[in-house]
């Protein structure tokens, strides 16, 4: 009886246990891991991934996915960067573009990705396409559009640089001299997404549609509307991630964001978001993202070879999912 309880506890709390074991292990191997600087670094590195994971969580909750997520990050990055370069920069993407208040490129970028999201949602809801293949097609299209735009004269596929300070500010400004605004954005996004999913009718409807589309239909939920709204929200979040990437790196090129959706999906899945829909918590996604950041940051910190890092990351995904299957069994 006692061992059964212990086993249940271990399985139920497997995420937190894995996280703690990893941290403890790293501190034992490298005591200097335990310092404030490491903490803020991990948070900063998690910020963009966090936004992506929150975004991907929406289609996952419907039992769907969005393979175009990463390419949308890239498109958003190139779009926003191309419109927010310094006036005196030698290699301007749009040489004659007047000075725009920073909110304008941001809103244009978000509007573009929102349209992509709406099309994804339309394909899945109305045309009844499988999310996997519909969004894969979309990912190719988005990448193609991005490359076309990026290769435009006079840019000719040169990396976009000379990003204005008012955009880079998102990364360079440190709250209390310590915490980047990127982290603040991520925290605010976590709170908003948590609120929407748990405290609003729309959020409940996402879980209901994801849990049983047929029951949702009988319950008078407009299933198509929910699906399309979900993909628009998701696109806006990954678009935001693209903008944050530009702020963080001070530039952009068309390969930005490649495969970010897979990192985001694995973080969610490790965090207990079910791929079959209807199950998943925001807290799970947060922990999933942090686990992955700690793996890549921490393993590098204690000097593990990059190839081994990949193997360990893969193992963590498989083990976490295996444990999760047992929890739901």
């Amino acid at each position: 009886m006692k061992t059964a309880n212990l086993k249940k506890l271990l399985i139920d709390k497997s995420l937190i246990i894995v996280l703690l074991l990893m941290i403890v292990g790293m501190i034992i191997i490298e005591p200097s891991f335990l310092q404030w600087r490491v903490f803020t670094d991990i948070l900063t590195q998690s910020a963009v991934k966090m936004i992506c994971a929150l975004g991907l969580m929406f289609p996952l909750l419907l039992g769907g996915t969005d393979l175009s997520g990463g390419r949308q990050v890239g498109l958003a990055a190139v779009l926003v960067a191309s419109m927010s370069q310094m006036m005196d920069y030698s290699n301007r993407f749009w040489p004659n573009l007047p000075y725009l208040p920073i909110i304008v490129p941001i809103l244009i970028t978000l509007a573009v990705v929102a349209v992509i999201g709406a099309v994804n949602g339309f394909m899945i809801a109305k045309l009844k396409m499988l999310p996997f293949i519909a969004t894969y097609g979309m990912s190719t299209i988005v990448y193609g559009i991005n490359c076309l735009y990026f290769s435009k004269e006079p840019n000719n596929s040169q990396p976009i640089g000379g990003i204005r300070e008012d955009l880079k500010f998102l990364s360079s400004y440190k709250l209390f001299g310590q915490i980047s605004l990127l982290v603040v954005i991520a925290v605010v996004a976590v709170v908003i997404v948590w609120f929407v999913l748990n405290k609003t009718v729309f959020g409940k409807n996402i879980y209901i549609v994801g849990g049983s589309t047929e029951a949702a239909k009988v319950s008078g939920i407009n299933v198509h509307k929910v699906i399309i709204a979900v993909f628009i929200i998701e696109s806006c979040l990954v678009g935001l991630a693209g903008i944050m990437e530009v702020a963080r790196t001070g530039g952009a090129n068309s390969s930005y964001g490649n495969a970010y959706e897979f990192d985001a999906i694995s973080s969610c899945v490790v965090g207990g978001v079910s791929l079959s829909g209807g199950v998943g918590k925001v807290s799970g996604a947060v922990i999933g993202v942090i686990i992955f950041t700690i793996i890549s940051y921490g393993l590098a910190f204690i000097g593990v070879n990059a190839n081994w890092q990949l193997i360990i990351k893969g193992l963590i995904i498989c083990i976490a999912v295996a444990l999760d299957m047992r929890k739901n069994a």
Partner: protein
Amino acid sequence: MEQYRLKVSNISKSFPGVKALDKVKLEVRPGSVHALIGENGAGKSTLMKCLFGLYHADEGTIELDGEQVEIDNPHTALKLGISMIHQELNPIPYRNITDNIWVGRFEKKGIIVDEAKMRSKTEALLKDLDFDISPDVLAKDLSVSQLQAVEIAKAVSYNARVIIMDEPTSSLTVAETQHLFQIIKRLREEGRSIIYISHKLEEIFEVADEITVMRDGQYVGKWAISDITIDELIHQMVGRDMEERFPPAENVVTKDVILKVEDFTSGDEHSFQHVSFELHKGEILGVGGLVGAQRTELMEAVFGLRKISSGRLFLNGNEIHNHTPQDAIRNKFALLTEERRATGIIPMLSVWDNILAVAYGKLADNFIGFIDKKKLGAPVETVCKDLDVRTASMDTLIKNLSGGNQQKVLVGRWLLSDCDILILDEPTRGVDVGAKYEIYKIMRDLARNGKAIIMVSSEMPELLGMSDRVMVMCEGRLSGVLNREEVTQEEVMKFATKFSNKAKEVISQ
């Protein structure tokens, strides 16, 4: 003593909470057609699944030509010479007919599948049975009756001693049925035994040699076809005593017609056609009929889940349109679906979320749709108390509740949505006896409080015990409406099998 081809003795099979078969016996002679009949849920299909190795019987023996056999899986059954035409066809849609017939026993030449040999065997088989179907068409391109033909060919191809046919004519036309009967007669002449399950009594009198009747999972009796009349047969099928299984009828049926359905016709010609009926405030209207009578489809159309090609709907005398479930809910309709697991509960969500699935939108009517858990708490609590929902907590996942409690949560879901017309499709399916009574009581209370209820039910006692009126459907058409005073099991059965017109002709001939 004559030897039986198949002798099944004392077979029992239990499922959690239900004894599906209770010491059933079945004796089939060689070279005969043996009809197996009984109401929905009498255990016919369960018995056949035991014979075919899909279920494993808890006790009892099966003898085949005097030899006791163990049938653990369909593979063994087929090897022993028992083949089955299933009620629900499961073709492999994107494979051709040849592959569909020989799947699992492909002809091989070394390690290579011998397509040519299989194809010629298929061609010969289909020709022999007079089916005009090419072996090369894909199963998905066949009509349902053609698929049925393929299924028959497949069963014959096993060279079986016993062929089980479970409702083989459900999708066949009259001509196709006659063709099937010829095949059956030929198979009988070849010395094979056929177990023929059908609800269509006139067919049975046309084709069968002997009849075994089952009821409530029990063996009732066996007759030679010449020794029994249709009336006697119906009586044997339904003949059971009504116990005090229903709460007293305290509801008062008013004269107010709350709902009028006029000439509802589906676009699908095999579905409901020209159905009209009225529902009164405070009434429980039972809807009877056999599987395939299109009752569920009709109700789904009334609720806006299915399209109709013609028909009108009146609520309190005013015409309304339920194009979608959203419309229906706005017009205060509710639908408790037949398939609780597939279309009712959302298994991985809590009782709380499940009970509020419909009402969330209504109760949280502020701009952003913010859900105030405190504000929702009171109505949810009242409903759960009224319905006596038993759950550890509101956060328990609904999949962990018993069937009866799940059903109560779903009724609660609709009560919270403030409905006036409740359509309950098989409200007590998969619910244990105690909880059944509670659900009946809830239905009575609702009717007494002025709600109007449509109850689709395949359980005869429920239909008779609960309904103020019973409308009976048969093959998509309304075949009769019976008032409380005139409703008997025999009457319902007659309408449900269209016995009152078609079968009488057969007899008078």
